[in-house]
């Protein structure tokens, strides 16, 4: 499932004195089975961009094509699009409302008009995929811990079997262990279920470890777009935008300045370790 954005612009509060250009001429192509990280400062337009991808916000100008079809066509099936492009909002646990976890996860597929059996099968599968303990399936979602609630909320979107899954700051407010669990889960889903995953974040460390493409946004525009190691080459420019490269990047540059022949493009701790050991002649 490919998504193409053609010169998409969006104006907030059009016609009022508070008019803000939230997106400016965004052109973008998202292919199958990608793992993309969208990073940017608060107010850079990253959340606005993600809400365009499943038609929750309509662009002021420009077009979006999903599998070659313009989603702004009058006869386009928005409901189908929302099933195909799943969007998990920031703090998704705030959207839970049913009496049991299982019922809440059923909400999405039920809205897709599936029969009861398929709905329940999907819910079960989704909860299983996010690693939610079976004995808690019928407990109230309001009694769970923060991390568990978030799993339920993600399962609620997964149960719709989207081909593209967008997550807005999925680890905000979670402890480091919970954070790693969520990221590992996403990586697993991308590889095993062949999904495209788009991750909105402002933590470079997280993004560098998992994604294979980074889109950097600033003031409603795409500033950089490429593989992590290519993007982090511009770490000085990133700093100017109020962002930062992973700490590994800084370490490697410092080592290079002190005449140790390491690979300055290493983006993860693992890569850095190998490169340093190599430079020291240990391996």
């Amino acid at each position: 499932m490919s998504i193409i954005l053609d010169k998409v612009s969006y104006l907030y509060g059009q016609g009022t004195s508070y008019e803000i250009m939230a997106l400016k001429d965004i052109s973008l192509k998202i292919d199958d089975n990608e793992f993309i990280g969208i990073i940017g400062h608060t107010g850079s337009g990253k959340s606005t961009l993600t809400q365009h991808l499943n038609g929750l916000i309509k662009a002021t100008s420009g077009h979006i094509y999903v599998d070659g079809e313009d989603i702004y066509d009058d006869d386009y099936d928005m409901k189908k699009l929302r099933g195909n492009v799943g969007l998990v909002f920031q703090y998704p646990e705030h959207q839970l409302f049913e009496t049991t976890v299982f019922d809440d996860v059923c909400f999405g597929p039920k809205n897709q008009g599936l029969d009861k059996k398929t709905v329940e099968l999907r819910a079960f599968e989704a909860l299983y995929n996010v690693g939610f303990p079976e004995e808690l399936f019928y407990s109230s979602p309001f009694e769970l811990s923060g991390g568990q609630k978030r799993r339920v909320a993600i399962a609620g979107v997964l149960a719709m079997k989207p081909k593209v899954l967008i997550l807005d700051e999925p680890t905000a407010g979670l402890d480091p262990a919970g954070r790693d669990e969520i990221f590992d889960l996403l990586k697993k889903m991308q590889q095993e279920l062949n999904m495209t995953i788009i991750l909105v974040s402002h933590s470079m460390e997280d993004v560098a470890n998992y994604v294979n493409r980074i889109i950097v946004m600033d003031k409603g525009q795409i500033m950089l777009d490429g593989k992590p190691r290519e993007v982090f080459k511009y770490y000085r420019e990133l700093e100017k935008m109020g962002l930062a490269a992973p700490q590994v990047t800084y370490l490697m540059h410092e080592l290079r300045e002190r005449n140790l022949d390491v690979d300055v493009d290493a983006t993860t701790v693992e890569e850095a370790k190998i490169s340093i050991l190599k430079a020291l002649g240990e391996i």
Partner: protein
Amino acid sequence: MIRDITIGQYYPMDSIIHKLDPRVKLFATLIYIIALFSCKGIVGLIVITFFLATAVKLSKIPFLYITKGLKTIVMLLLVTTIFNLFLTPGKVTFWHYGILKITDVGITNAVVMTVRLIYLIIGTSLMSLTTTPNQLTDGLEKSLSPLSKIHVPVHAIAMMMSIALRFIPILVEETDKIMKAQMARGADFESGNIIKRAKNMIPLLVPLMVSAFRRADELAMAMEARCYTATEGRSKMKPLHYEKRDKIAYVIIISFLVIVVAAGIVIPYPQ
């Protein structure tokens, strides 16, 4: 839609009206409403128009922005006008069909009622546009403080009001967010009959309630952590003081009421 309501929205500007003490503005609004509904006669209406126009002019708020509040009462205005116009008995009947008739009194009533309602909305909008919610509740608390002698919890009421006002924009934003999140899960808030629509609201209302309670709980905790109590002896960071301009404003407001009432007695409507 929700954003169109101008009552309760502050419009920052540097004007004499903005600077007035909130107690003066509350008092002026009260007097203005009394004048508006006790006024009898064309002269009184002209005086009120002049008073309102001056206040709007002095506030420096674009007139079109103030009238945005009228959008919400268009239906009410239409109904009032139509009822008054067609259903009032009078001395001279210009036209009639069944129980519907247009009379001289009907026309006068329709015009006066419509003008009154429009002026009422513009006047009260003007007050809320030039006064921050905090000032407003401060003013209210101070004006009602004599009631605390008879054990009315004036401070607690004022605090509740300011918190409620403060939370309106937050809850509007929250509603928007949850609505989008449920729409992303295929929820439909727009189609279906009234029962189905009400049922569809559950996925919106339950999380909204939960979040309102959570926020209230967190706020109460934060207030307690700062040792807040609603007991006597609380001091204010910015206590209200009357300035010279406030005293002048009081004089103007009182004379305004006197003129309107006097005009009604001397020159009533042509009957």
